């Protein structure tokens, strides 16, 4: 195909150039998958991957929103953990409270996110330190409450992660809908555009009449909300509240955000890139598992992918 056609498509669908790298990697992984494994390219496998990807997906949406306003949220993993334990522990004692507790857990996430945002704004402390502090407090509290997986939820809640509509996993549908809603919000709503404005240049945003503090508060609250949603997904998947389940999520949620072309420091990037990043990471680990590549080598590959993805483009200007 002639190169100018590619340029045309890029402009026609207003593709962010930063999306190209994740699309290229995705094509490489899928092609390699079809060539190297006969079990990879089946519809059943793709649906399974979609189901498994959603926990990471929810967490990444939250991380992406915070990164867009120029922050970073290192408390995501601990919010995931705390919400699984909270939900499973309460529902274990009062099974009738299952549905209120779903909303209660999401509200809990919003509160933690709000606190993160509030402290960041009011003290001017770097979000890295603030969210690290909240993470430490939450983790400590959860570990004082329990050291082992605890609690239980009714069986029907399993449907949230394992349920299928036709052949498509419910959790995957919910994740894609979330991504789509956030994309529409960021692209077509004034409040959504404000996130980019604040991330790009807080002072300029303030001068043009945007209430930066509210926008930042909103982004952190949303991050807490999606972390709690990821927590609900993990409860649904395992049926218990595990005080360790969120540990790897914090750093894992950053990888798709970076692969998707968002820049630490804020103001740039497309949330659909993050969606592709989540799918890429999940497909890659799925493929490597089929190829019997050890987890240890998968870590090396993951690290190298981050390095390649961020060092292909030389970003000018501010960094975190």
């Amino acid at each position, binding site marked *: 195909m002639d190169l100018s056609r590619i340029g045309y498509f890029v402009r026609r669908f207003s593709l962010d150039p930063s999306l190209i790298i994740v699309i290229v990697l995705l094509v490489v992984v899928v092609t390699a998958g079809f060539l190297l494994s006969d079990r990879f390219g089946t519809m059943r496998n793709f649906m399974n991957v979609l189901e498994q990807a959603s926990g990471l997906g929810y967490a990444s949406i939250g991380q992406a929103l915070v990164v867009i306003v120029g922050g*970073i949220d290192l408390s995501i993993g601990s919010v995931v953990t705390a919400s699984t334990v909270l939900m499973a522990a309460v529902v274990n004692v009062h099974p009738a409270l299952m549905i209120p507790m779903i909303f209660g857990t999401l509200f809990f996430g919003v509160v933690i996110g709000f606190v993160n945002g509030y*402290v960041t704004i009011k*003290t*001017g*402390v*770097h979000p*890295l*330190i*603030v969210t*690290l*502090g*909240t*993470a*430490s*407090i*939450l*983790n*400590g*509290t959860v*570990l*004082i409450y329990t050291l082992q997986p605890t609690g239980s939820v009714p069986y029907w809640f399993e449907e949230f992660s394992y349920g299928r509509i036709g052949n498509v996993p419910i959790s995957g549908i919910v994740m894609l809908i979330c991504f789509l809603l956030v994309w529409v919000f960021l692209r077509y709503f004034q409040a959504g555009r404000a996130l980019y404005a604040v991330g790009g240049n807080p002072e300029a945003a303030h001068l043009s009449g945007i209430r930066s503090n509210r926008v930042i508060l909103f982004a952190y609250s949303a991050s807490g909300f999606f972390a709690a949603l990821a927590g609900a997904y993990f409860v649904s998947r395992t049926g218990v509240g595990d005080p360790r389940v969120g540990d790897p999520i914090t*750093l894992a949620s*950053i990888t798709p955000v*970076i692969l998707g072309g968002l820049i*630490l*420091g804020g103001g740039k990037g497309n949330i659909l890139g993050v969606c592709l990043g989540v799918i890429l990471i999940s497909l890659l680990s799925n493929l490597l598992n089929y190829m019997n590549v*050890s*987890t*240890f*080598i*998968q*870590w*090396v*590959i*993951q*690290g*190298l992918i*981050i*390095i390649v993805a*961020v*060092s292909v483009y*030389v*970003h*000018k200007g501010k*960094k*975190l």
Partner: protein
Amino acid sequence: MNAISSVGILRTNFQFCQVIIPLALFGLIAVATILKPSFLSLNNIQDILTQAAPLALVVLGQAFVILVRGLDLSVASLMASSAVLATAFNATSDAMIPVIFAATVLVSACVGLINGMLVTKRNVSPFLATLAMMIVLQGVRFYYTQGAPYGSLPEGFRFLGVGRIAGIPVNICAFCVCFCFLCWLLHKSSFGRMIYITGGNPTSAKLVGINADRVTIFCYVISSVMAGIAGLFLVGFVGTVDNWVGRGYEIDAIVACVLGGIMLTGGKGTLWGAATGALILILIFNVVIILGLPVQAQLIIKGIIIIVIAALFSRANEP
């Protein structure tokens, strides 16, 4: 001119550090002594110092990186990697210890070089570059050990970790040597001035003819080398090698730097502050144990203290 102005900034920051950090330190010591009078016994002080030394070594390196507006998340992973590397020699005689140290310093320096190159030459954000390095090191280490380290270390390592020379813990002696050298480098040599200027404003550093990239890379190398050495001392202290030696030290090191008044925005802070920060952190852990609280309460108290102290510092540094 630039050197002078950055010294000026240092002074204003200094006054605040001079009040709050020692205050926090003495406050903690007072609380601990009231709760448990034996806290001030020679034996307990030696124990606390022995415990603090590996963390303090990492903190010294981390301070250099934060001074040039960076962050090194790969230190904990590097500590474990250097421990695993040490077992790879399968040495039994103490004569091998210098060789092990030399190899560790060499490998760590390479890791620091790569971190620094990514940050300066490719303009990767320090957070991501070192995060990726952390994951890569972890993968390589686990692949080499297949999950469970084997091999053995010379007996002498135990002495390095917990031994005492004339009542002074050996690892504290090592810390003092590193501390004096790095203090000279940062606070007395012209290279140290360059670090402050680069951290304060990389653009103006370039304009006054400083090779800012080289200075930054050197800071990453220092951080990695200190982490590698700290890993060996920590192995000596703990007595066993596993794949997670030093887990959580990257966070603790950053926290100690922030407690010690080193600004994440770069260019402000001293090594004295950083070392005090490390000591405060270890004392907090000790006080929690003395109070008879569950170990997990350390996490909660640590979290509260980071936010509060960081908030105090950021208020004090407002123009």
